[in-house]
């Protein structure tokens, strides 16, 4: 506990110091990470803590963004709020729209809830381009940051600090809420809303409030986005954004407060880093998500927790062979996948297909990848990924065996790790039970 507090404090100090260390473009990237982190965190209040999976959170992000733009003053109009307070507009409008949407959608649970959120978001998405005065038609709206408090907000650094303060404040507020009586009830809502109503709580009001708070924090994230790019258009309501946040949140891990923040930050970072290197980042992201859902349902945060619990249980000396083997296996399999995907992408690209046709039945020209030339017809080009996959699979097996030996050796000891495993499984299992009950 003390360790994690220290780590968080260190991370915050580092975030404040970043502009002194990093280049402008990197500061911008961190700015995006912060916004994505807040978005995922706000989404997780509803999804992870209250157990209501929304497929339409882009709506509240977009609403927050447009509300902030309107407050900023469109096309030279006067600003309604001083620049540092602009996200308040996103928060207020987000809260109100969340209150309305939440009142409707939390009347139903499970899949029906998800479908209503999706329908509401699509409703907005299809109507937005026709509502010119609100969303500026197809072109969208743009605004301008005005100087305030002696700051110009003209530079990226100013914007970065504005984002940082708001994101930390909003996440801090959300964490504080989890420690209040209401925050505890939100968890109970996920666990068993039926029982909650027989304990005298109004489950519908509770759900609506949670939805509204989640939309409010999401609105702040949207507002910060609008401030940093000074524009927005109706595409912000697209399903893609709603999907992104689901992916980020689950990859990070929904059962831990910091999970989604971690997930969103990591995925946005890699997204930024990878966009220069590959066109297939979204494919990798999808693969990561599916792998997480299949083999690691507690996400990155769950993995970290399992690791720390195991480090406490076994000595590092015993554990490191397993870790090393797992890392090697992950590395080999990742390399195999990346190589295959990138190779395919280059061969299938239009330019290359044109070249190939010009070769006129002869051998296809080589492909440039990882600083080397690869012939599509040669055995090495396709043998390499196969070797990588086989070797990766072999190391997975080695790691598993090692792990089993380690567990058997200490099976008489208390099973701390198991309880952590169970934690993840149990919540999902109880969810399952609830769904069954609903169906009956």
């Amino acid at each position, binding site marked *: 506990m003390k360790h994690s507090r220290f780590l968080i404090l260190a991370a915050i100090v580092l975030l404040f110091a970043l502009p002194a260390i990093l280049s402008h473009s990197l500061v911008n990237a961190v700015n995006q990470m912060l916004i994505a982190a807040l978005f995922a965190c706000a989404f997780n209040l509803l999804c992870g803590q209250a157990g209501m*999976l929304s497929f339409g959170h882009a709506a509240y992000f977009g609403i927050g963004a447009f509300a902030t733009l309107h407050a900023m003053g469109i096309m030279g109009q006067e600003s309604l709020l001083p620049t540092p307070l602009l996200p308040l507009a996103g928060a207020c409008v987000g809260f109100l729209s969340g209150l309305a949407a939440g009142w409707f959608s939390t009347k139903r649970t*499970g899949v*029906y809830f998800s479908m209503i959120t*999706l329908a509401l978001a699509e409703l907005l998405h299809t109507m937005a381009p026709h509502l010119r005065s609100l969303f500026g038609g197809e072109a969208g709206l743009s605004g301008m940051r005005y100087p305030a408090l002696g700051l110009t907000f003209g530079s990226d650094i100013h914007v970065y600090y504005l984002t940082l303060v708001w994101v930390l404040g909003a996440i801090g507020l959300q964490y504080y809420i989890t420690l209040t009586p209401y925050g505890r009830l939100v968890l109970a809502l996920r666990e068993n809303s039926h029982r909650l109503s027989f304990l005298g709580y109004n489950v519908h009001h509770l759900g609506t409030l949670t939805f509204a708070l989640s939309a409010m924090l999401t609105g702040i994230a949207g507002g910060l986005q609008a401030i940093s790019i000074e524009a927005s258009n109706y595409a912000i309501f697209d399903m893609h954004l709603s*999907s992104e946040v*689901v992916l980020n949140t689950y990859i990070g891990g929904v059962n831990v407060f910091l999970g989604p923040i971690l997930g969103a930050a990591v995925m946005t970072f890699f997204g930024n880093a990878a966009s220069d290197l590959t066109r*297939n980042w979204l494919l990798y992201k999808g693969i990561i998500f599916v792998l997480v*859902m299949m083999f690691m349902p507690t996400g990155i945060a769950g993995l970290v927790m399992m690791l720390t619990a195991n480090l406490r249980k076994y000595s590092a000396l015993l554990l490191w062979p397993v870790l090393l083997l797992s890392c090697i296996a992950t590395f080999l399999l990742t390399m195999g996948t990346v190589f295959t995907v990138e190779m395919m992408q280059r061969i299938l690209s239009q330019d290359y297909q044109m070249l190939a046709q010009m070769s006129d039945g002869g051998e296809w020209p080589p492909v440039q990848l990882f600083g080397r030339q690869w012939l599509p017809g040669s055995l090495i080009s396709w043998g390499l990924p196969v070797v990588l996959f086989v070797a990766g699979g072999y190391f997975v097996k080695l790691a598993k065996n090692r792990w089993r030996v380690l567990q058997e050796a200490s099976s008489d000891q208390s099973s701390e790790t198991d309880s952590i495993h169970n934690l993840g499984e149990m919540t999902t299992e109880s*969810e399952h039970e609830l769904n069954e009950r609903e169906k009956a």
Partner: protein
Amino acid sequence: MEYFTISLLNGTVYGLLLFMVSAGLTLIFGMMGVLNFAHTSFYMLGAYFAYTLQKYISFWPSIILATVLAGGGGIVVERYFLRRVHRYGHAHELLLTFGLSYIIAELIKLFYGNYPTNYRVPESLHFSAFQIFGTDYPVYRLLMGGISLGMFLLVYLLLSRTRVGIVVRSAIYRPRMAEALGHNVPLVFMGVFGVGAALAGLAGAVAGAFYTTNPNMALELGVIVFVVVVVGGLGSLEGAMLASLIIGLSSSFAVGIDLSLVDLFAFFGAGEWAQGLGGLMELKVSSLSATIPFALMLIILLVRPSGLLGEKG
């Protein structure tokens, strides 16, 4: 009159197409409780498979082969993905199919590029069925409607008249009971998942040539198909048919209606007042054609959450 007839025809055909895709989805949900986000991915796969195969074999065989391939894809998804996470619950399954749909769309972009293909109706089928109000009505539209109708009949008869159908229906309504009676429910699940995916694939193979075949077609159709199954009632085949037609017709008719709320108020003599309000008031019905299905779904979910013909609450 011309507008009415054409809209009626087009709307019906579009509705029948929607049904072809939603039939599998609604059966799968009814049976397994899984809302399969990847379902329209099979629609897209069907279209792309048929498009690819056409370069090598003729039109109809490639349609059939594409259908089979899409069905095979469905079986793989059920057997090797969904079944593994079944114990984590429905929300988890939903998320997994969501991830798979994401991957499939990205793979399609990888293989075919992020732009529409030139998948077209073959020349041999490119003629008009009849003339109506001086314009040609393409025979291919009728063909799509015919295939969909034929499929509805086939599935309906299969479910209501055969032994397999009885087992499947019992697995849909009482999976535990069917298992206790000694039926291999996992096999039935896999079968229905495969058939559902094949139907979606068939729809894609046929419709992809007429509408467009692009990497976004799964997502675009996906949300509409969700609307269909929710409006019709999750698990109800007849409901899916009814809802498909309602949504097909309403979107087809809405496109041509240039009225707005202002006109409605004008009818009561308050047109100028409404015009002054602007915003929502001035929206024309035609520009809302994409919105109507979602509004309909919201109303249904709030008024009659089990859907028009849904049996499960």
